[in-house]
Protein backbone atom coordinates (compact mmCIF):
# COMPACT_ATOMS: atom_id res chain seq x y z
CA UNK A 1 0.00 0.00 0.00
CA UNK A 2 2.74 2.46 0.97
CA UNK A 3 4.43 1.68 -2.33
CA UNK A 4 1.27 2.62 -4.24
CA UNK A 5 0.96 5.92 -2.34
CA UNK A 6 4.57 6.77 -3.09
CA UNK A 7 4.16 5.75 -6.72
CA UNK A 8 1.37 8.33 -6.96
CA UNK A 9 3.56 10.91 -5.26
CA UNK A 10 6.29 10.19 -7.81
CA UNK A 11 3.83 10.53 -10.69
CA UNK A 12 2.40 13.70 -9.20
CA UNK A 13 5.83 15.28 -8.89
CA UNK A 14 6.73 14.20 -12.44
CA UNK A 15 3.59 15.83 -13.82
CA UNK A 16 4.11 18.92 -11.66
CA UNK A 17 7.49 19.45 -13.28
CA UNK A 18 6.15 18.76 -16.77
CA UNK A 19 3.51 21.43 -16.16
CA UNK A 20 6.30 24.00 -16.57
CA UNK A 21 6.14 23.33 -20.32
CA UNK A 22 2.79 25.07 -20.46
CA UNK A 23 3.91 27.93 -18.26
CA UNK A 24 5.50 28.62 -14.91
CA UNK A 25 2.99 27.72 -12.19
CA UNK A 26 2.74 27.01 -8.44
CA UNK A 27 2.88 23.21 -8.90
CA UNK A 28 6.19 23.45 -10.71
CA UNK A 29 7.61 25.90 -8.20
CA UNK A 30 6.55 23.70 -5.32
CA UNK A 31 8.20 20.62 -6.85
CA UNK A 32 11.34 22.60 -7.68
CA UNK A 33 11.71 23.79 -4.08
CA UNK A 34 11.21 20.27 -2.73
CA UNK A 35 13.99 19.12 -5.05
CA UNK A 36 16.44 21.79 -3.89
CA UNK A 37 15.58 21.26 -0.23
CA UNK A 38 16.08 17.52 -0.33
CA UNK A 39 19.28 17.77 -2.38
CA UNK A 40 20.72 20.16 0.21
CA UNK A 41 20.11 17.75 3.06
CA UNK A 42 21.55 14.89 1.00
CA UNK A 43 24.92 16.63 1.06
CA UNK A 44 24.87 16.73 4.85
CA UNK A 45 24.02 13.04 5.00
CA UNK A 46 26.86 12.24 2.61
CA UNK A 47 29.31 14.35 4.51
CA UNK A 48 28.42 12.54 7.72
CA UNK A 49 28.06 8.95 6.57
CA UNK A 50 30.83 8.83 3.95
CA UNK A 51 33.38 11.25 5.36
CA UNK A 52 33.07 12.20 9.04
CA UNK A 53 32.00 8.81 10.34
CA UNK A 54 34.44 6.51 8.48
CA UNK A 55 37.37 8.87 7.98
CA UNK A 56 37.35 11.11 11.08
CA UNK A 57 35.58 9.17 13.82
CA UNK A 58 36.39 5.67 12.52
CA UNK A 59 40.13 5.67 13.37
CA UNK A 60 39.34 6.63 16.99
CA UNK A 61 36.50 4.16 17.50
CA UNK A 62 38.50 1.38 19.14
CA UNK A 63 40.58 3.55 21.42
CA UNK A 64 37.44 5.41 22.49
CA UNK A 65 35.65 2.14 23.27
CA UNK A 66 38.53 0.81 25.36
CA UNK A 67 39.52 3.90 27.31
CA UNK A 68 36.59 6.28 27.16
CA UNK A 69 36.71 9.90 26.04
CA UNK A 70 38.91 11.35 28.79
CA UNK A 71 41.59 8.66 28.91
CA UNK A 72 41.83 7.87 25.19
CA UNK A 73 44.08 10.88 24.58
CA UNK A 74 46.89 9.19 26.53
CA UNK A 75 46.80 6.19 24.21
CA UNK A 76 46.78 7.79 20.77
CA UNK A 77 49.34 6.48 18.27
CA UNK A 78 51.38 9.00 16.23
CA UNK A 79 49.16 8.17 13.22
CA UNK A 80 46.13 9.21 15.21
CA UNK A 81 47.79 12.47 16.27
CA UNK A 82 48.68 13.26 12.67
CA UNK A 83 44.99 12.91 11.79
CA UNK A 84 44.39 16.08 13.76
CA UNK A 85 45.93 18.09 10.91
CA UNK A 86 43.10 17.35 8.43
CA UNK A 87 40.59 17.52 11.27
CA UNK A 88 41.89 21.00 12.09
CA UNK A 89 41.65 22.00 8.41
CA UNK A 90 38.09 20.63 8.22
CA UNK A 91 37.13 22.69 11.25
CA UNK A 92 38.79 25.71 9.60
CA UNK A 93 36.47 25.17 6.63
CA UNK A 94 33.47 25.43 8.92
CA UNK A 95 34.84 28.55 10.64
CA UNK A 96 33.69 30.44 7.56
CA UNK A 97 30.38 30.77 9.34
CA UNK A 98 31.91 32.65 12.30
CA UNK A 99 32.99 36.13 11.10
CA UNK A 100 35.80 36.94 13.58
CA UNK A 101 37.75 33.78 12.66
CA UNK A 102 36.42 33.37 9.14
CA UNK A 103 39.88 34.10 7.74
CA UNK A 104 41.05 30.72 9.06
CA UNK A 105 38.84 29.00 6.47
CA UNK A 106 41.35 30.28 3.88
CA UNK A 107 43.85 27.77 5.19
CA UNK A 108 41.52 24.92 4.37
CA UNK A 109 40.55 26.41 1.03
CA UNK A 110 44.23 26.99 0.22
CA UNK A 111 44.90 23.33 0.87
CA UNK A 112 42.06 22.10 -1.36
CA UNK A 113 43.02 24.57 -4.12
CA UNK A 114 46.69 23.56 -3.98
CA UNK A 115 45.79 19.88 -4.08
CA UNK A 116 43.36 20.37 -6.94
CA UNK A 117 46.03 22.30 -8.87
CA UNK A 118 48.68 19.66 -8.23
CA UNK A 119 46.35 16.84 -9.18
CA UNK A 120 45.25 18.74 -12.27
CA UNK A 121 48.79 19.29 -13.53
CA UNK A 122 49.92 15.70 -13.00
CA UNK A 123 46.70 14.18 -14.31
CA UNK A 124 46.47 16.09 -17.55
CA UNK A 125 50.19 15.88 -18.25
CA UNK A 126 50.61 12.16 -17.64
CA UNK A 127 47.09 11.07 -18.49
CA UNK A 128 46.10 13.28 -21.40
CA UNK A 129 48.75 15.32 -23.15
CA UNK A 130 51.52 12.74 -23.39
CA UNK A 131 49.44 9.66 -24.31
CA UNK A 132 47.23 11.64 -26.68
CA UNK A 133 50.15 13.14 -28.57
CA UNK A 134 51.69 9.70 -28.66
CA UNK A 135 48.48 8.30 -30.14
CA UNK A 136 48.54 10.99 -32.85
CA UNK A 137 51.87 9.76 -34.20
CA UNK A 138 50.21 7.46 -36.72
CA UNK A 139 51.62 5.53 -39.68
CA UNK A 140 51.07 6.88 -43.20
CA UNK A 141 51.81 4.14 -45.72
CA UNK A 142 50.72 3.21 -49.22
CA UNK A 143 49.86 -0.33 -48.16
CA UNK A 144 46.56 0.51 -46.50
CA UNK A 145 45.41 3.69 -48.20
CA UNK A 146 42.10 4.03 -46.34
CA UNK A 147 43.55 3.87 -42.86
CA UNK A 148 46.46 6.08 -43.87
CA UNK A 149 43.92 8.60 -45.13
CA UNK A 150 42.07 8.43 -41.80
CA UNK A 151 45.33 8.75 -39.89
CA UNK A 152 46.24 11.79 -41.94
CA UNK A 153 42.89 13.40 -41.13
CA UNK A 154 43.33 12.72 -37.41
CA UNK A 155 46.79 14.29 -37.51
CA UNK A 156 45.67 17.34 -39.48
CA UNK A 157 42.53 17.77 -37.35
CA UNK A 158 44.46 17.60 -34.10
CA UNK A 159 47.19 20.00 -35.15
CA UNK A 160 44.96 22.49 -36.96
CA UNK A 161 42.53 22.62 -34.03
CA UNK A 162 45.44 23.33 -31.72
CA UNK A 163 46.57 26.11 -34.05
CA UNK A 164 43.10 27.63 -34.01
CA UNK A 165 43.55 28.21 -30.28
CA UNK A 166 46.98 29.71 -30.74
CA UNK A 167 46.10 33.30 -29.92
CA UNK A 168 49.46 34.87 -29.38
CA UNK A 169 49.92 35.50 -33.09
CA UNK A 170 47.54 36.99 -35.65
CA UNK A 171 45.84 34.36 -37.84
CA UNK A 172 47.39 35.42 -41.16
CA UNK A 173 49.25 33.59 -43.92
CA UNK A 174 50.03 29.92 -43.28
CA UNK A 175 48.71 30.13 -39.73
CA UNK A 176 45.51 31.66 -41.08
CA UNK A 177 44.98 28.82 -43.57
CA UNK A 178 45.75 26.24 -40.93
CA UNK A 179 43.43 27.74 -38.36
CA UNK A 180 40.66 27.89 -40.97
CA UNK A 181 41.11 24.16 -41.52
CA UNK A 182 40.95 23.87 -37.75
CA UNK A 183 37.61 25.65 -37.50
CA UNK A 184 36.19 23.29 -40.13
CA UNK A 185 37.06 20.28 -38.01
CA UNK A 186 35.80 21.99 -34.88
CA UNK A 187 32.45 22.56 -36.59
CA UNK A 188 32.22 18.89 -37.54
CA UNK A 189 33.05 17.92 -33.95
CA UNK A 190 30.53 20.35 -32.47
CA UNK A 191 27.90 19.09 -34.88
CA UNK A 192 28.56 15.52 -33.75
CA UNK A 193 28.43 16.60 -30.12
CA UNK A 194 25.20 18.45 -30.76
CA UNK A 195 23.67 15.37 -32.36
CA UNK A 196 24.73 13.31 -29.38
CA UNK A 197 23.35 15.90 -26.98
CA UNK A 198 19.94 15.75 -28.64
CA UNK A 199 20.15 11.98 -28.37
CA UNK A 200 20.91 12.21 -24.63
CA UNK A 201 18.14 14.66 -23.80
CA UNK A 202 15.58 12.65 -25.72
CA UNK A 203 16.65 9.49 -23.86
CA UNK A 204 15.90 11.21 -20.56
CA UNK A 205 12.42 12.07 -21.72
CA UNK A 206 11.88 8.52 -22.95
CA UNK A 207 12.76 7.39 -19.44
CA UNK A 208 10.19 9.66 -17.80
CA UNK A 209 7.41 8.84 -20.26
CA UNK A 210 8.24 5.17 -19.81
CA UNK A 211 7.79 5.66 -16.06
CA UNK A 212 4.43 7.38 -16.48
CA UNK A 213 3.12 4.78 -18.94
CA UNK A 214 4.48 1.52 -17.62
CA UNK A 215 4.97 2.07 -13.92
CA UNK A 216 2.29 4.53 -12.90
CA UNK A 217 -0.56 4.16 -15.43
CA UNK A 218 -0.14 0.41 -15.75
CA UNK A 219 -0.50 0.10 -11.97
CA UNK A 220 -4.07 1.34 -12.42
CA UNK A 221 -5.12 -1.58 -14.56
Amino acid at each position, binding site marked *: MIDIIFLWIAAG*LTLAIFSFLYKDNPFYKFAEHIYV*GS*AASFWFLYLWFFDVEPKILGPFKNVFKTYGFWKMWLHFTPEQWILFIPIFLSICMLLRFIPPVAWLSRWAIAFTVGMA*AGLGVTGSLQGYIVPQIHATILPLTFKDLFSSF*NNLIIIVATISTLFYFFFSKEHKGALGIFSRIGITFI*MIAFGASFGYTIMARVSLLIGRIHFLLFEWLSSLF
Partner: protein
Amino acid sequence: MKKGVPLFITFISGFILIVALFIPHEPFGSLQERFNDWYIIVSGFTLILGIDSLLAYHYRKIKRKEKEAPYSFALLLTFIITLLWGIYSGIKHGNPFAPTSTFLRYFYTYVFVPLQATMFSLLAFFIASAAYRAFRARGLNATLLLISAGIVMLGRVPKGEDFSPYFIAVTFILIAIVCILEALPRISIYERVLFFGLAIISLILIFPIGIFLKTKLPLLSDWIMNVPQLGAKRGLFIGISLGAIAMALRIILGIERTYLK
Protein backbone atom coordinates in the same frame (compact mmCIF):
# COMPACT_ATOMS: atom_id res chain seq x y z
CA MET B 1 49.00 34.76 8.87
CA LYS B 2 46.06 35.78 6.75
CA LYS B 3 47.82 35.67 3.38
CA GLY B 4 51.24 34.13 3.85
CA VAL B 5 50.13 30.89 5.44
CA PRO B 6 47.49 30.04 2.82
CA LEU B 7 49.93 30.80 0.00
CA PHE B 8 52.49 28.54 1.62
CA ILE B 9 49.94 25.73 2.12
CA THR B 10 48.88 25.96 -1.53
CA PHE B 11 52.48 25.92 -2.72
CA ILE B 12 53.52 22.95 -0.61
CA SER B 13 50.50 20.78 -1.40
CA GLY B 14 50.66 21.43 -5.14
CA PHE B 15 54.45 21.17 -5.28
CA ILE B 16 54.62 17.81 -3.47
CA LEU B 17 52.08 16.27 -5.85
CA ILE B 18 53.98 17.41 -8.93
CA VAL B 19 57.33 16.28 -7.59
CA ALA B 20 55.85 12.92 -6.60
CA LEU B 21 54.85 12.31 -10.22
CA PHE B 22 58.49 12.49 -11.31
CA ILE B 23 60.12 11.13 -8.13
CA PRO B 24 57.67 8.63 -6.64
CA HIS B 25 60.24 7.51 -4.02
CA GLU B 26 60.51 8.55 -0.38
CA PRO B 27 59.68 10.96 1.01
CA PHE B 28 57.54 12.30 -1.85
CA GLY B 29 55.58 9.12 -2.50
CA SER B 30 54.33 8.73 1.04
CA LEU B 31 53.80 12.47 1.45
CA GLN B 32 51.61 12.41 -1.62
CA GLU B 33 49.54 9.56 -0.15
CA ARG B 34 49.16 11.39 3.12
CA PHE B 35 48.15 14.62 1.42
CA ASN B 36 45.63 12.73 -0.68
CA ASP B 37 44.20 11.19 2.46
CA TRP B 38 43.84 14.60 4.07
CA TYR B 39 42.31 15.98 0.90
CA ILE B 40 39.68 13.22 1.00
CA ILE B 41 38.73 14.31 4.52
CA VAL B 42 38.85 18.07 4.01
CA SER B 43 37.23 18.27 0.58
CA GLY B 44 34.15 16.55 1.99
CA PHE B 45 33.47 19.75 3.86
CA THR B 46 33.34 21.76 0.65
CA LEU B 47 30.18 19.78 -0.16
CA ILE B 48 28.18 21.80 2.32
CA LEU B 49 29.62 25.22 1.50
CA GLY B 50 26.87 27.34 0.08
CA ILE B 51 24.07 25.41 1.74
CA ASP B 52 24.13 27.88 4.63
CA SER B 53 23.45 30.79 2.31
CA LEU B 54 20.71 28.84 0.54
CA LEU B 55 18.92 28.16 3.81
CA ALA B 56 19.46 31.70 5.09
CA TYR B 57 18.05 33.13 1.85
CA HIS B 58 14.84 31.14 2.16
CA TYR B 59 14.55 31.78 5.87
CA ARG B 60 14.66 35.52 5.17
CA LYS B 61 11.93 35.14 2.56
CA ILE B 62 9.66 33.47 5.08
CA LYS B 63 10.40 36.05 7.75
CA ARG B 64 9.57 38.94 5.41
CA LYS B 65 6.38 37.12 4.33
CA GLU B 66 7.28 37.56 0.68
CA LYS B 67 5.03 36.29 -2.11
CA GLU B 68 7.28 33.27 -2.59
CA ALA B 69 7.34 32.45 1.13
CA PRO B 70 5.20 29.29 0.89
CA TYR B 71 7.72 27.76 -1.53
CA SER B 72 10.59 28.69 0.73
CA PHE B 73 8.72 27.09 3.59
CA ALA B 74 8.33 23.91 1.52
CA LEU B 75 12.06 23.95 0.81
CA LEU B 76 13.04 24.30 4.47
CA LEU B 77 10.48 21.74 5.55
CA THR B 78 11.74 19.21 2.98
CA PHE B 79 15.28 19.92 4.08
CA ILE B 80 14.44 19.14 7.71
CA ILE B 81 12.27 16.10 6.97
CA THR B 82 14.88 14.63 4.63
CA LEU B 83 17.64 15.20 7.12
CA LEU B 84 15.73 13.66 10.04
CA TRP B 85 14.51 10.73 7.96
CA GLY B 86 18.02 10.16 6.66
CA ILE B 87 19.56 10.27 10.13
CA TYR B 88 16.89 7.92 11.49
CA SER B 89 17.46 5.41 8.65
CA GLY B 90 21.19 5.87 9.03
CA ILE B 91 21.17 4.97 12.71
CA LYS B 92 18.81 2.05 12.15
CA HIS B 93 20.55 0.50 9.13
CA GLY B 94 24.11 1.79 9.41
CA ASN B 95 23.63 4.05 6.41
CA PRO B 96 20.61 5.96 5.09
CA PHE B 97 21.31 4.44 1.69
CA ALA B 98 21.23 0.84 2.85
CA PRO B 99 18.93 -1.23 0.62
CA THR B 100 16.72 -2.08 3.58
CA SER B 101 16.20 1.51 4.72
CA THR B 102 12.88 3.26 4.20
CA PHE B 103 14.79 6.39 3.27
CA LEU B 104 16.22 4.74 0.16
CA ARG B 105 13.14 2.74 -0.66
CA TYR B 106 10.60 5.55 -0.43
CA PHE B 107 12.14 8.97 -0.24
CA TYR B 108 15.04 8.50 -2.65
CA THR B 109 13.22 6.31 -5.17
CA TYR B 110 9.84 8.01 -5.26
CA VAL B 111 10.55 11.63 -4.44
CA PHE B 112 14.12 12.56 -5.24
CA VAL B 113 14.69 10.49 -8.37
CA PRO B 114 11.46 11.51 -10.17
CA LEU B 115 12.13 15.17 -9.37
CA GLN B 116 15.70 15.18 -10.64
CA ALA B 117 15.06 12.96 -13.64
CA THR B 118 12.02 14.94 -14.78
CA MET B 119 13.76 18.26 -14.24
CA PHE B 120 16.45 17.24 -16.70
CA SER B 121 14.07 15.55 -19.13
CA LEU B 122 12.53 18.98 -19.76
CA LEU B 123 15.71 19.68 -21.70
CA ALA B 124 14.46 17.32 -24.42
CA PHE B 125 11.63 19.74 -25.19
CA PHE B 126 13.86 22.77 -24.97
CA ILE B 127 16.55 21.34 -27.21
CA ALA B 128 14.00 20.30 -29.84
CA SER B 129 12.55 23.77 -29.90
CA ALA B 130 16.02 25.38 -29.84
CA ALA B 131 17.21 23.19 -32.72
CA TYR B 132 14.25 24.33 -34.81
CA ARG B 133 14.75 27.97 -33.91
CA ALA B 134 18.52 28.37 -33.98
CA PHE B 135 19.88 25.68 -36.28
CA ARG B 136 20.05 27.76 -39.45
CA ALA B 137 22.37 27.28 -42.41
CA ARG B 138 23.79 30.80 -42.06
CA GLY B 139 27.16 30.18 -43.65
CA LEU B 140 29.67 27.50 -44.51
CA ASN B 141 30.58 26.71 -40.90
CA ALA B 142 27.00 26.58 -39.68
CA THR B 143 26.10 24.35 -42.62
CA LEU B 144 28.95 21.97 -41.80
CA LEU B 145 27.74 21.78 -38.22
CA LEU B 146 24.23 21.07 -39.45
CA ILE B 147 25.33 18.30 -41.82
CA SER B 148 27.53 16.64 -39.22
CA ALA B 149 24.75 16.76 -36.60
CA GLY B 150 22.24 15.37 -39.09
CA ILE B 151 24.49 12.47 -40.10
CA VAL B 152 25.19 11.57 -36.48
CA MET B 153 21.56 11.91 -35.42
CA LEU B 154 20.33 9.58 -38.13
CA GLY B 155 23.39 7.35 -38.24
CA ARG B 156 23.38 6.55 -34.55
CA VAL B 157 19.77 5.36 -34.29
CA PRO B 158 18.43 2.09 -35.70
CA LYS B 159 16.86 2.39 -39.18
CA GLY B 160 17.94 6.02 -39.36
CA GLU B 161 19.55 5.26 -42.73
CA ASP B 162 16.13 4.37 -44.17
CA PHE B 163 14.97 7.93 -43.57
CA SER B 164 18.12 9.56 -44.91
CA PRO B 165 17.25 9.45 -48.67
CA TYR B 166 14.10 11.46 -48.00
CA PHE B 167 16.04 14.13 -46.17
CA ILE B 168 18.57 14.19 -49.00
CA ALA B 169 15.78 14.46 -51.57
CA VAL B 170 14.07 17.34 -49.75
CA THR B 171 17.37 19.18 -49.19
CA PHE B 172 18.54 18.87 -52.80
CA ILE B 173 15.14 19.77 -54.23
CA LEU B 174 15.28 22.89 -52.08
CA ILE B 175 18.75 23.66 -53.39
CA ALA B 176 17.45 23.19 -56.94
CA ILE B 177 14.51 25.52 -56.29
CA VAL B 178 16.86 28.16 -54.91
CA CYS B 179 19.09 27.78 -58.01
CA ILE B 180 16.11 28.15 -60.37
CA LEU B 181 14.86 31.21 -58.50
CA GLU B 182 18.37 32.56 -58.74
CA ALA B 183 18.49 31.86 -62.50
CA LEU B 184 15.16 33.42 -63.53
CA PRO B 185 15.94 37.11 -62.95
CA ARG B 186 19.43 36.87 -64.49
CA ILE B 187 19.91 38.59 -67.82
CA SER B 188 23.23 37.05 -68.83
CA ILE B 189 22.64 33.78 -70.64
CA TYR B 190 25.75 32.23 -69.10
CA GLU B 191 24.56 32.85 -65.57
CA ARG B 192 21.15 31.43 -66.42
CA VAL B 193 22.70 28.28 -67.85
CA LEU B 194 25.01 28.02 -64.85
CA PHE B 195 22.19 28.16 -62.29
CA PHE B 196 19.87 25.90 -64.28
CA GLY B 197 22.79 23.49 -64.61
CA LEU B 198 23.35 23.57 -60.86
CA ALA B 199 19.65 22.89 -60.31
CA ILE B 200 19.75 19.88 -62.62
CA ILE B 201 22.97 18.58 -61.05
CA SER B 202 21.54 18.79 -57.56
CA LEU B 203 18.41 16.95 -58.71
CA ILE B 204 20.52 14.21 -60.27
CA LEU B 205 22.74 13.98 -57.20
CA ILE B 206 19.76 12.94 -55.08
CA PHE B 207 19.99 9.38 -56.39
CA PRO B 208 23.64 8.46 -55.83
CA ILE B 209 23.87 10.29 -52.50
CA GLY B 210 20.53 8.87 -51.36
CA ILE B 211 21.58 5.32 -52.24
CA PHE B 212 24.99 5.83 -50.64
CA LEU B 213 23.48 7.06 -47.39
CA LYS B 214 20.82 4.38 -47.31
CA THR B 215 23.50 1.70 -47.33
CA LYS B 216 26.42 3.45 -45.64
CA LEU B 217 25.00 6.00 -43.19
CA PRO B 218 25.88 4.10 -39.97
CA LEU B 219 29.42 3.64 -41.29
CA LEU B 220 29.62 7.31 -42.21
CA SER B 221 28.59 8.36 -38.70
CA ASP B 222 31.12 5.89 -37.30
CA TRP B 223 33.75 7.54 -39.45
CA ILE B 224 32.79 11.06 -38.35
CA MET B 225 32.98 10.04 -34.69
CA ASN B 226 36.24 8.14 -35.02
CA VAL B 227 38.18 10.35 -37.41
CA PRO B 228 37.48 14.09 -37.84
CA GLN B 229 35.48 14.44 -34.61
CA LEU B 230 38.14 12.59 -32.67
CA GLY B 231 40.99 14.67 -34.08
CA ALA B 232 39.26 17.95 -33.35
CA LYS B 233 38.33 16.89 -29.81
CA ARG B 234 41.90 15.79 -29.19
CA GLY B 235 43.24 19.14 -30.34
CA LEU B 236 40.65 20.97 -28.25
CA PHE B 237 41.37 19.03 -25.09
CA ILE B 238 45.13 19.22 -25.47
CA GLY B 239 44.66 22.98 -25.74
CA ILE B 240 42.37 23.05 -22.71
CA SER B 241 44.78 20.87 -20.70
CA LEU B 242 47.69 23.16 -21.51
CA GLY B 243 45.64 26.13 -20.37
CA ALA B 244 44.63 24.33 -17.17
CA ILE B 245 48.24 23.41 -16.42
CA ALA B 246 49.33 27.02 -16.88
CA MET B 247 46.55 28.14 -14.54
CA ALA B 248 47.40 25.48 -11.95
CA LEU B 249 51.07 26.49 -11.99
CA ARG B 250 50.09 30.13 -11.49
CA ILE B 251 48.04 29.09 -8.47
CA ILE B 252 50.80 26.93 -7.00
CA LEU B 253 53.39 29.65 -7.47
CA GLY B 254 51.11 32.21 -5.85
CA ILE B 255 50.71 34.43 -8.93
CA GLU B 256 46.99 33.73 -9.13
CA ARG B 257 45.36 34.55 -5.79
CA THR B 258 41.70 35.18 -6.52
CA TYR B 259 40.68 32.11 -4.50
CA LEU B 260 41.88 33.85 -1.34
CA LYS B 261 39.34 36.66 -1.66
